[in-house]
């Protein structure tokens, strides 16, 4: 198979001007991967900066409720509250090796932007984050934090003003700045070596989860659930069990307002994704007959993306990963249960995995062992969640606050 390909997916479809940059990045990545000291340095950094290993929490009340053994992998406990930290800290170490002084990144919900900004602060790098103008509006708290951390946030007003357009804008920066700049891509997508490299850094999730489940449950799980936007948290946890054919993987995409409505971001479960090439790689994209990318929709900004990791597209093709979707409504309902039964505030993205597990558990043989990857925490979603729940107290609070600002 050609380098950087996973079945028919992957590759490096990049402008000629970036060819040399990718050649050098691939080389740096391959050298790091062969150097055991690099991985040890990464583990040490993640242990004392990001609190790893993250726990695998036995969800006692959910287990009793569903009649199964439900375990939750707590990526929400990472530095900045999501699995994104695993990727950015790894790439940060690589940036150090390559001697670059500036990092750029795209962000949708803002989680990857905040994570990149913390990494840049810690490693003393200049940092510019590209974010769709619509997302800047929807995710002000994350914009605030990125700026406080010293990053420059550039609102992107081209295209549909969302994540995919932020990727395009970051690439436009990079074709001019590659000499001193590294592009910290946030997920297991894009041109080779990004899908493979990001998955490698995220594999820390699955490596830990496998040891933890064997210790706690005394056996491998029957099923592992993870939400899939670009696919990095799913790749992270699935890799821990890829060589165990008895473990089933379920990737959960954003069902939005329902697959039939057309307003969703489900590329695989909906069968709507068509083979295409964009953003530097070949995968299944939500696109029209002309090859133009479609608008996507999800209550969770981090899942609102037209493409999907080429590695996951391949694992889907060969039947190793099953794909399903959860609608906005199902996700909000599941989040309520998760909070009230286990005291966990999951991110809306991550709660897609929770919602699908809830939907499937009643149909599984009793006492099945299940792992759900809780890829991030939901504090950042307080505005969206409060709206979805129609919380009157929150509404009054915001109105009062606005009133105070108006007076001052």
């Amino acid at each position: 198979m050609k380098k950087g390909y996973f079945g028919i997916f992957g590759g490096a479809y990049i402008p000629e001007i970036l060819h040399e940059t990718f050649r050098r990045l691939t080389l740096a990545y391959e050298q790091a991967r062969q150097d055991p000291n690099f991985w040890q340095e990464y583990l040490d950094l993640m242990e004392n900066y990001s609190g790893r290993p993250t726990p695998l929490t036995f969800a006692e009340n959910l287990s009793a409720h569903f009649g199964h053994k439900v375990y939750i992998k707590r990526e929400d406990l990472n530095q900045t509250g999501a699995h994104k930290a695993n990727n950015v800290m790894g790439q940060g170490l690589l940036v150090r090796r390559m001697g670059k002084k500036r990092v750029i990144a795209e962000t949708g919900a803002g989680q990857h932007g905040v994570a990149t900004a913390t990494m840049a602060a810690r490693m003393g790098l200049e940092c510019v984050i590209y974010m769709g103008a619509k997302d800047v509006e929807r995710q002000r708290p994350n914009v605030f934090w990125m700026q406080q951390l010293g990053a420059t946030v550039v609102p992107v007003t081209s295209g549909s003003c969302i994540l995919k357009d932020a990727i395009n804008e970051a690439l436009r920066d990079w074709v001019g700045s590659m000499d001193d700049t590294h592009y910290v891509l946030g997920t297991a997508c894009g041109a080779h070596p990004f899908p493979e490299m990001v998955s490698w850094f995220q594999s820390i999730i699955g490596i830990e989860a496998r040891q933890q489940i064997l210790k706690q449950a005394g056996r491998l799980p029957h099923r592992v659930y993870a939400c899939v936007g670009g696919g990095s948290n799913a790749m992270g946890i699935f890799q821990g069990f890829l060589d165990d054919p008895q473990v089933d993987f379920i990737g959960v995409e954003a069902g939005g307002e329902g697959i039939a409505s057309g307003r969703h971001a489900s590329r695989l479960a909906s069968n709507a994704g068509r083979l295409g090439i964009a953003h530097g790689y070949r995968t299944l994209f939500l696109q029209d007959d002309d090859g133009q990318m479609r608008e996507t929709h999800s209550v969770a900004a981090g899942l609102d993306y037209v493409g999907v990791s080429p590695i996951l597209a391949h694992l889907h093709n060969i039947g190793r990963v099953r794909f399903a979707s959860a609608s906005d409504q199902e996700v909000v309902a599941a989040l309520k249960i998760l909070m009230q039964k286990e005291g966990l505030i999951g991110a809306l993205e991550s709660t897609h995995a929770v919602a699908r597990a809830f939907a499937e558990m009643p149909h599984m043989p009793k006492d099945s062992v299940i792992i759900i990857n809780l890829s991030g925490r939901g504090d950042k979603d307080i505005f969206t969640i409060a709206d979805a729940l129609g919380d009157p107290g929150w509404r009054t609070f915001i109105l009062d606050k606005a009133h105070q600002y108006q007076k001052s």
Partner: protein
Amino acid sequence: MHAATPSLLETCIRNSPDPILLMSHLVLGYPSLEENRKVMDAMVAAGVPIIELQIPFSEPIADGPVIARANQESLANGFRVETGLNFIAESVQRYPIPIIIMTYTNILMAQGFDPFIQRAAAMGVRGLIVPDLPLEEAGDAIQSCQTHGNNQLDWIRLFTPTTPDSRLELLGQGASGLVYCVARRGVTGRHTEFDPQVMAFINRCRSATRTPLALGFGVRSREDVQSLRGKVEIAVVGTAAIEIHLSRGAEAVGSFFAGLR
């Protein structure tokens, strides 16, 4: 490999008596196909000898803000690839100059690489520029150009300042028609200083291929074009013409081009 006899595009470039040729760039459907037609009339009347027509794509990663916005607005106005291809076919008939298609890989892929290229060849298009399909991935597309093009449809390669000499040579060996030289890092539209660095880059390009060179990215004024005389066969003017069209209309584009040489 290098064609035994030069292609139609290359012959047309080599036979021109002008010391430097201008290649212009239009985004189809922006602001409308009717306006595209008016601008092309004006360009051809002003002596522009090669025109590059861009089929819009929703993810134009290699384009700067002006052309990216043109892509987006054309699509927002309902541009369809089929209409665009018909417009290109008419343009080839209407103007006595070579027409080149520029677009992104996914547009070809949606139609099928081979059917797209076969159709472009049948229409009489003289070249294809696809900036996100690097040489390593372009094998089949180049093959299709040779199969259907009969030495009349060139797969146009790109040279950039970050391309090492060894790779320039690899790209240059199989080049035909013209080679598109990207004058500097960054995207289209910003101004380029045509300083000794650019001239050194042009010399590297010249050593790597016998195919005519077209230099683009940031060519905006008569002065720019003059400084390229005798250095490259073609100067590519894209963003500047789109800006003039928007601010001063189609006729102004004609006098702009007439004043460049």
